[in-house]
């Protein structure tokens, strides 16, 4: 039991260290006092756009187009969000309505 407990503490420390490492590394490499290389500035201007694209795909990575429900709840909901957002441009409305729409879909039609 005690052995286990020590292992739990060490695993927790490993998770903390790994997270701190990945979050702080870029800032340690390019401290704000020093001149940031041009290439890195270019990266920091373009990466946010690519990273959001990556995140959208990351959220949808689990859906399957060859098995029921063929990703339909996700795709339909994203369609609703996109339409609402282009039309009204209100983030909270688009996110709220899109989420409720998705919940209704998977709890009724696609359950």
């Amino acid at each position, binding site marked *: 039991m005690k052995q286990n407990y020590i292992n739990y503490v060490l695993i927790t420390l490993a*998770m903390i260290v790994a997270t701190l490492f990945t979050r702080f590394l870029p800032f340690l490499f390019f401290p704000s006092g020093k001149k940031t290389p041009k290439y890195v500035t*270019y990266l920091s*201007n373009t990466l946010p756009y690519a990273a959001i694209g990556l995140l959208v795909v990351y959220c949808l990575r689990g859906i399957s187009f060859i098995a029921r429900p063929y990703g339909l709840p996700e795709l339909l909901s994203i369609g609703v969000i996109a339409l609402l957002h282009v039309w009204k441009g209100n983030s909270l409305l688009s996110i709220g309505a899109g989420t409720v729409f998705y919940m209704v879909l998977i709890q009724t039609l696609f359950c």
Partner: protein
Amino acid sequence: MKKQYKRMEALQYAFPKTVPVMAGYLVLGAAFGILMRVNGFGIMWALLWSIFVYAGSLQYLGISFFTAAVNPWYALFMSVMLNARHLFYGLSMLDRLKGAGRFKPYLIFSLTDETFSVLCNEEVPDHLPEDWVYFFISLLDQLYWVAGTLLGAAAGSMLRFDTAGMDFALTALFTVIFIDQWKARKNRRAALTGVFSSVVCVLIFGKDVFIIPAMVMILSVITIGYQKTKDKEVPI
């Protein structure tokens, strides 16, 4: 007096920005708390992780570290791999966090997927203190996560309301930010690069390990783009 007033204003401005994250984090945090309990790990562990690790997907993976009682070095390696995408966020935020002053360490520590997505698209109005707005957004997000964890670990089994699908709020949040960036016509090519590379890598490498290859591909494509613009700038 004046300063405090500004802070209140910053909080009032920050709060609505975090509402989508609140929906997602309460649900995902509660799900995490429930899973910890179901697997026999007390509320203290769940709380400890949500405060000091504060990385959603890693905390889910961490449950399997505990149940399998893995070697801590293995846990370290896997955690770095899973968290590698944070390197992107850091690189993206280098400029934005330059003026963050004393909040900077906390803002870096708390840069989750969701907080990043809100901050990277944030244009704080001039009359508000930017550092406080960033700080409140980050802090509120973590409070939601911790509150969700507590709720799940303490009262998860008593929940009567069907929350299935509520975590879609986060997908919705990212989608909306993507559309906002798209509408602003800035860097559409980079946005497409992100989506395209990720989809290709999911298809080739599978959903569990696609992130790192996708990051490499995104970096390569963007670097090629940089080389091209650089060549153009050089006078003949």
